[in-house]
Structure formats: structure tokens, C-alpha cells
């Protein structure tokens, strides 16, 4: 089924190239891929933290290279994002005047490449699938783009090619840093080798730096971001939706999949550098975004700026921040896709996206205005839309979990500056909304028609997903956390930090937990386990109405063990209850408090 998800767009693209009807085949393929992703979502085993549905074809036994695909929590979320945005992008493409076949083929190749990259467990194919999307992007921007499309196409292609090769060097170095006997391209084998401590600290620092720069170029990290705004401004709307929404997340996915789990020493060594660069993303690029006078440029710069939040979550390398990063990746993909889609429609109808020339369009295009409004508020981080869930977790996670440098808790400083970024993004987003859709209607635009009914469906899909995961972020969190919990606990170094920092606030933590109805347990307690269980039954164990959302797994009647403090003041589970490593309860999943206080 995973292979179907990967190859459905690619085969459809090949069919279109040899002459199948372009739009119908593309739509059918994207619907089928979306359905397959939904199927994967509903049949996902939440408790298991390993890769599921793994299929493997050996390519080269000598290099331990095999075409292995599978999904786990993080890949599933990314797969879902990729398929939703592909469906929306293909639907929004509309009628293309020239070379329609090539257009849809390129879109599907980008989609197939992204899905393949997210679903690959093998390092080589992880890299190769992403490169598959490079040339179709070049063609899409160059042939069907607008504005300064030639320069933009060259810039993005060459910049990303160089970034990819730096990433390749990092991957080769990673492969070589493991002793020859256990070398493999398989990410699971690399994870095992890393947990066994086979990658030296020195090697980790070098590899992490290479990966950071390579993946950072791919994600438009601060000094390497100049390719993004121009490319997104010049690209046709579906291409911008796919690239900004999905392909950019490849770099962040790579950091989450490779850099943090395999190279924790490298992550801690370069954390300060990453924080400074991401602040450049947020503050500097944020201020540049405010200065933009055109909607497409503003959206391009804003997508660069929002990457800063996700980088902050990743840099904090604690489970809260990393979960927030994953949720924000998903949410940002959806919201930026929505914004680019509406912007593309505007460009098509009005021919211009300069703010001063637009205005009052909400009167003639109410539905588009509503959709754009949802996108704007999602990007801003309004609660109720999925971005908020991600951002709040990132802010809390980095505030709590960061490293301390002398007297300065650099992550706390970074969080404060990132919150300034929230205000900055509010400024430019709301200003864009006001200037485009509100205000006085320009005479020229009196005759514009609103989005036709068929286009309202993909918009509804995107907005619906944003709202659904905005009000029920649990559903996303429960998917990704088992995986993160695994590797963030596999790294004893990181859990020591967490434990230490938590131990440092254990008094407050004890009060916090006690205030939730859980008394701290004394190990000299003579009460029987059953009595204890009944006495300490807390709100954590009651089943809430939102646990019974249709579509989620049937709730097993497993009582989650209450958290307790032992005499040392650190959190641990009481005796007699099996720890949940490896067989996490199929219960409610993990709400934020549990994650934070573990």
C-alpha cells in the first residue's frame, strides 16, 4: 500500500507523458493516492513505534543498499500532508493553455518524489526521490511561471542542486562513520548503530554541520533563503503549493529523521548556531516580509519566515518541541498551500498581485475571501487552526527544554524573539488580507467572478483539515509521539538533560501534579496496589468525550499508570505497573501535560 502511494503519481505522470488525458488522469491519481493515505491513517497501529508496512527490495548487498519503504508516525503525517496538498494542487491547476500534459506530469513527479522521500527508510532512496522533484520544478517555473521566471527557475535549481550535494556529502560521511561491519543505508540499522554509540562525537559534529547546511539550504534557512521568495513568486500556483507546502518539509523531515536521532552530540554542539540562524529567519525575514508590496512575494517570504518556528522546535530536541515541529510542519503545509492557491486564482483573474492595485475583492469574491481569511489566520497562529497547536508546543518546548549557556538560557531568549515573530507575522498577514479583500473596491475588479463551485471542494478540504486538526490536535500528536518518545529516550544524554532540568524544577512539578489531583506517592507506602490505584485515580485516567472521535482506534480499556514522584522528587511510575516502553497503551494517546512532565 505504501508502494502504491509512491508509485501511483509517478506512473500516472508517465501515462500522461505518453498521451493519457492530462487533467482526468492527474485528478484520478491524486484522489487514489489521497484515499490510500487515508487508508494508511486508519489502519495505523498507534502503539508501535517502529516502522510499519515495510517492504524491501535488495539492490546491492555489498553496500547494504535496498529499496525499503515503510511508515511510522512522522512519515504518516508527512504522507498525509503530501497527498492532501497534491490533491488540492492538481485540482487548482485548471486548464493549461500550452503543454498541458507536461504540466500535470511535472506536478505528479514532484508529488511522487515527495511521497517517495517521506516513505523511504533507505537513505539513498530518501535522497534520490527528493531529487526527482528538482527538474520538474525547474520546468514548471520556467515554462508556466510568471514574472522573472527564467532567473527564478535557474536560481532555485542550482541553489537546491548545490544544497543537495552538500547533503549527499553529509550522508556519505554518516555512512562512513559507522564501523564497516555494521554499515548500511537502512535508517533502522543506522539508528541501532547510533544508539549503540558507534558514531564518535567528533564525527557527529562534522556530519551534523553538513546535514544542517545541506538540509538548511533545502528548507531556506536564514543565509541560504534567497532562492525561495523569487521562486514562489514566479511559480504557477500549483507548483508553489507543492513546493512550499510539501517539498520544503523534506529538509525538516530529514533533520527530524536523521540529524536528531542519529547525531545528538552534533545537535547539541551546533544548537546555538541553529538558534541564531533561525532567529535570522524569523526576525530578519519577517521584517523583510512586512516590506513587501506584492502578495506573491509576501507569501514567499512568509513561508521562509515560518520555517524558523519549525527549526526552533527541532533545535530544542525535547519531545515537546519536536512534536510541535511535526504538527507545525503539517499545518504550515496546508495553510501555505491554501494561501498560494487563492493567490494564484487572484493572479489569474486580475493579472496583478500588487497590494495597491487590489482592494475590496471580498465584495465580489466572498468565498475566496473567506478561504484566504482562514489561511491568513492559520498562518498567524490563531487557536482553532492547526498551526496554533504546533506553535504552542514549540514555544513551550523550547522555553523549557533548551540548553543553558552560563547564565543565559539561550532558548528562552530565542522563544521570546520568536514570539515577536508571531506579532510580525500577524502584521503582514492581516495587512495583506485587508489590502486585498477589504477596503474600497477598485472599479476594475467589479466584474470578477468568485471561485467556481468545483474549486470550492479543495479549498474546503484544506480549510477543513486545518480546522479539524486545530480543534483536535490530539489526533496528530498521538501519531507522532510514540516515535519521538523512542528516539528521544534512546538518547540517554538527552533524557539526562530532561531529567536534570525536570529535577531542577521538581518541586514546582510536584505541586503541579498534585494540583491535578495526584498525590505524590511514598515508596514506603503500605497500601495495596488496588487501593493505591483507586486512591490515585486521576483525571488522567478518565476517558474524555474527545477520545471517542470516530475514526480513531477503538479505545482499549487500559488504565494509564498514574504519574508519581518518588522520594527523590523525580517522576517515575509506581511499582507493579509495567512500563510502557515498546508497548504503549492503546489508550488516549498522550496529552500535552503527560509529555511535558515525563
Amino acid at each position: 500500500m505504501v508502494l502504491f502511494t509512491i508509485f501511483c503519481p509517478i506512473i500516472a505522470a508517465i501515462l500522461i507523458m505518453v498521451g493519457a488525458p492530462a487533467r482526468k488522469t492527474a485528478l484520478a491519481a491524486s484522489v487514489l493516492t489521497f484515499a490510500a493515505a487515508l487508508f494508511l491513517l486508519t489502519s495505523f497501529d498507534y502503539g508501535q513505534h517502529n516502522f510499519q508496512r515495510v517492504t524491501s527490495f535488495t539492490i546491492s548487498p555489498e553496500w547494504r543498499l535496498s529499496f525499503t519503504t515503510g511508515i511510522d508516525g512522522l512519515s504518516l503525517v508527512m504522507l498525509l500532508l503530501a497527498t492532501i496538498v497534491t490533491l488540492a494542487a492538481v485540482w487548482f491547476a485548471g486548464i493549461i493553455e500550452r503543454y498541458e500534459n507536461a504540466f500535470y506530469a511535472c506536478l505528479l513527479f514532484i508529488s511522487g518524489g515527495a511521497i517517495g522521500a517521506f516513505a523511504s527508510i533507505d537513505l539513498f532512496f530518501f535522497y534520490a526521490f527528493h531529487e526527482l522533484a528538482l527538474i520538474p520544478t525547474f520546468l514548471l517555473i520556467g515554462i508556466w511561471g510568471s514574472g522573472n521566471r527564467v532567473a527564478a527557475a535557474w536560481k532555485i535549481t542550482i541553489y537546491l542542486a548545490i544544497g543537495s550535494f552538500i547533503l549527499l556529502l553529509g550522508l556519505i560521511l554518516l555512512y562512513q562513520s559507522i564501523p564497516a561491519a555494521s554499515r548500511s543505508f537502512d535508517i533502522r540499522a543506522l539508528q541501532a548503530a547510533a544508539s549503540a554509540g558507534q558514531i564518535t562525537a567528533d564525527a557527529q559534529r562534522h556530519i551534523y554541520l553538513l546535514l544542517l547546511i545541506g538540509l538548511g539550504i533545502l528548507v531556506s534557512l536564514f543565509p541560504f533563503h534567497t532562492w525561495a521568495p523569487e521562486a514562489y513568486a514566479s511559480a504557477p500556483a500549483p507548483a508553489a503549493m507543492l513546493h512550499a507546502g510539501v517539498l520544503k518539509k523534506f529538509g525538516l523531515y530529514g533533520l527530524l529523521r536523521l540529524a536528531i536521532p542519529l547525531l545528538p552530540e552534533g545537535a547539541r554542539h551546533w544548537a546555538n548556531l541553529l538558534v541564531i540562524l533561525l532567529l535570522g529567519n524569523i526576525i530578519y525575514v519577517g521584517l523583510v516580509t512586512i516590506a513587501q508590496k506584492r502578495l506573491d512575494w509576501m507569501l514567499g517570504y512568509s513561508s521562509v519566515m515560518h520555517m524558523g518556528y519549525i527549526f526552533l522546535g527541532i533545535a530544542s530536541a525535547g519531545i515537546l518541541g519536536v512534536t510541535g515541529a511535526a504538527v507545525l510542519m503539517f499545518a504550515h503545509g496546508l495553510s501555505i498551500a491554501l494561501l498560494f492557491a487563492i493567490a494564484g486564482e487572484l493572479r489569474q483573474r486580475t493579472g496583478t498581485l500588487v497590494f495597491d492595485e487590489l482592494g475590496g475583492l471580498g465584495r465580489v469574491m466572498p468565498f475566496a475571501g473567506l478561504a484566504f481569511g482562514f489561511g491568513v489566520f492559520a498562518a498567524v497562529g490563531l487557536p482553532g487552526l492547526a498551526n496554533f497547536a504546533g506553535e504552542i508546543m514549540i514555544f513551550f518546548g523550547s522555553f523549557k527544554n533548551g540548553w543553558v549557556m552560563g547564565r543565559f538560557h539561550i532558548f528562552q531568549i530565542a522563544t521570546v524573539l520568536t514570539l515577536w515573530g508571531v506579532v510580525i507575522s500577524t502584521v503582514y498577514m492581516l495587512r495583506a488580507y485587508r489590502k486585498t479583500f477589504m477596503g474600497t473596491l477598485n472599479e476594475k475588479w467589479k466584474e470578477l467572478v468568485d471561485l467556481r463551485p468545483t474549486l470550492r471542494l479543495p479549498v474546503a478540504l484544506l480549510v477543513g483539515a486545518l480546522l479539524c486538526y486545530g480543534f483536535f490536535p490530539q489526533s496528530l500528536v498521538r501519531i507522532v509521539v510514540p516515535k519521538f518518545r523512542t528516539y528521544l529516550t534512546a538518547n540517554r544524554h538527552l533524557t539526562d538533560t530532561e531529567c536534570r532540568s525536570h529535577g531542577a524544577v521538581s518541586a514546582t512539578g510536584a505541586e503541579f501534579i498534585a494540583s491535578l489531583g495526584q498525590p505524590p506517592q511514598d515508596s514506603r507506602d503500605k497500601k495495596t496496589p488496588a487501593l493505591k490505584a483507586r486512591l490515585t485515580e486521576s483525571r488522567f485516567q478518565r476517558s474524555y468525550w474527545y477520545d471517542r472521535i470516530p475514526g480513531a482506534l477503538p479505545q482499549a480499556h487500559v488504565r494509564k499508570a498514574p504519574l508519581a514522584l518518588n522520594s527523590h522528587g523525580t517522576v517515575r511510575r509506581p511499582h507493579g505497573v509495567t512500563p510502557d516502553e515498546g508497548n504503549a497503551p492503546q489508550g488516549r494517546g498522550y496529552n500535552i501535560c503527560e509529555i511535558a512532565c515525563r
Partner: protein
Amino acid sequence: MMRITAPELEIAVLVLGMVILMVEAFAAKIDKRILAFAAIAGLGIILIASFLVAPYASPNQATGFWSFYTADGLSIFFKQFALLSTILVLIMMIDYAPVVRRSFPGTRNGLGEFFAVPMFTCAGLMYLVSAIDFVFIFVSLELVTISFYVLVSFTRRNPLTLEAGTKYLVLSALSTAFLVYGIAWIFGVTGQTNLHWLTEALANPATDRSAALLGMVFVLVALGFKIAAVPFQIWVPDVYQGAPTPVTAYLSVASKAAGFVVLLRVLLPFVTLPPIQRLLVLIALLTLIYGNLAALPQTNLKRLLAYSSIAHAGYLLIGVVCFDARAVTFYLAAYLLMTLLSFAVLIIVAQQTGEEISDFDGLAKRSPFLAFAMLIGMLSLAGLPFTAGFLGKFFIFYAAVLQRQMALLVVGVITVGCGFYYYLKVVRAMYWQSGVNTDKISVNGLSRLTISALVIGTIWLGVYPQPILDALQR
């Protein structure tokens, strides 16, 4: 099944060449392309026979024939390489025949030798990759070079070709002089020309190492000319542009490959000496930088491919510096596929329109098949995954990372970016621009088959390299 030994392969090729030449001389009335088909068929049989040859590395203390000729796995692989590239070049020559005929107006002569001389070149290349003695290297190199003198200036009515031929003749003769002088120095210092005994002689502390190094530098000059390394690359753009296009393809692929094999063999005795290592790194850096930067402004596709072949020599030199023969050989195998593919498409398009990149405008409309084939060729040359070119670069960079060659890696990554630009210029012309000339281009059956086979081979090698890797293991 009778056992075939390696020397019989070259003898067969030489006999085939002479037969074709005789037929051409005495049967003047036939369509000369029959000769080409006969040559392809003959070479195909010899190629199949080569798979039946058991590798036989010549023992170190051999005397006589086996003291200068070896049949180890590397040489068998490259004999097959030479045979395959000659077959593909002959197919391209069939397509190119009308152009050659135009340079001999009025007579029907002249075309037969065009098909016969590559046999001798092929035999020379096959001898060259088996040579383990300097004198034999020199003799086979001469066979190859003299055949190329004839081939490069074949369409002699064209002044550009004559200029190319003269440049090639003079510079090649100069480099051969360097080669002989270097061999003489090495022989004078060590008293050996056999490469293995040379290694032993150099290990002897009594030999004058610096004199041997001087001789080696002269030999490197000559080999640098052959593989188009900087600063011996001046002949490449003009000769590649002026020569008939199939000959350019042949020069670019087969001659370069043989040059690299000789380089690997010849460097083996000297590889432990640090000055050679530093010199090679310097040459590799210069070649990478020059080849890629000079290719950026090119507008003529043939000249662009010439500069790009210099760039690829740079990547191969990275492999030589790290002394990873397997990476170099794999890269050469990939290079054969993608370069011959690009040249095959170029020949067909050039006959209809021209050789400039702007002549490729709108090719996607005129012939989607050719445009797609060129797309795969260009992407493989640039180094996009799922193509053979990427795996070649991957192995080369792998070797460089293993040896921590920082300068080579940094320059290598930057030049890959340059490469994306000038290779994608062709892709842009084909797919973005709309051409002036819009009639369809037809491709005949044999060419279509060959181009499809090359495209499939390029993608296959990029996805499933294991058979070639196994073959290289032997």
C-alpha cells in the same frame, strides 16, 4: 567450447578491419553502409566472445608476450568497453554518412575507410588497456592516435575539420614526444620498462627517486593530453568541434577511457610518492574548475560537450587521486552511456537543424522521443539521481570523503552546481523555447533502437548497478 584467450580478440578485430578495408578497395560499387553493418556484426560477435574469455593476470615474472600484455579483469572489462563504444560509434557513423558523402562530391569513394579505420582504433584501444610495459603502451597509443589523425580530419573539405586535424596532429605528436622522453628517463634511471619490475626497482633505495619522478611527470604530460586534463586540454574544444561528430564521440569516450586505464596502471608504481599525489590533486582541481567555468558561456552544443568532457575528466581525476579504480571504472561505464546518448541525439538533430543550442529550441514538439532521450542524457551528465551519472559521482565522492580530500570535495560540489546550469541550458532550449523550425524529425529504426537502449541503460545503471559492480569486482 574452445577456450578463447584474450590476444585472439585483438587479432580478430585487426583481421576484421583489414577485411573491410580490402572489400572497400576492391568492391567499389556496393553501398558502403553494408561495410558498416558488417563491421557492427563482426564486432558484436567479438564482443560476445569476449565474455567467454577467462581473465588471466600475467604473472609477475613472465617473459615474452605476457611480460607486456596482461588479461586481467580490468583489461577484459575495458576491451568490452572499447568494443561496445566502437559498435555504437559505427551506428552513429551510419547516421552521419550523408554529411561525409557531401565532403566528397562527385565520387562514391572515401566512405568505406570511414567505417574501416575505427576497427584499427578499436584494436589499438584493446591493446592499450592490456599493456603493462611502457614500450607496448607507446606502440598501442601510436596505433590509436594515428587512426584518430585519419578520422578527425576525414571530412577534409571543411576548413574547421582541417584546423581540428592539424591541431590534433601537432599537439598529439608533441605529447607523444613527451611520453617517449619520459619513458627514456624512467628506463635510464631504473633500467626497466615493465611496470611491475619498475615497482620493484623503485622500492630499491638505491634508485634516484627524483629522476624517476621527472620521467613520470613527462609521462603524465602525455597522458594528461590524452584524458584532456588541464593544462593539457587546449586541443579539446577545437578538435571536438571540428571533427565529424561520431569521431568526437569516439574520441571523447573511448580514447579518454583508455587514457584513464593507462593512467591507473602507470601510477601504480609511483602512487606512494607524495609529490605525485599533490601534483594529481592540483591537476584535478584545475581541470574541474576550468572545464566547468569554460562550459558556462558556450552556445554550441558540440563545444559544450567538449568542455564538459574536460569537466568529467576532472571528476575522474578525483577518483584517480583517491586511487579507487572501481569508482573510476564505474564512472567511465556511466560516462560511455550518457555521452554516446547525447552525441547520438546531437547527430540526428544537427543534420536537420544545426549544432548550436538554439537549434534545439522546441525539440519537444518536433520529436518528443529525441527530446526525452536528450533530457535523460543531460540529467545523467549533470548527476541527477536515478541515472547512471549520479551513481558515478556518488562513488567518486564516496572515495573522496573516505580520504578526506577537502579541497576536491568543495570544488566538486561547486562544479556540480555549474554543471546543472549548462546541462539544463539544453533542457531549457528543448522544452521552454519554441523553435523557428517546426517540422518533425524522423529517426530511423536502428538509431531509435540504439537511443532507446542507451536511455534504458542509463536509467537501469542508475537504479540497479549491481551487475556492473559485480563485473568490476573480478
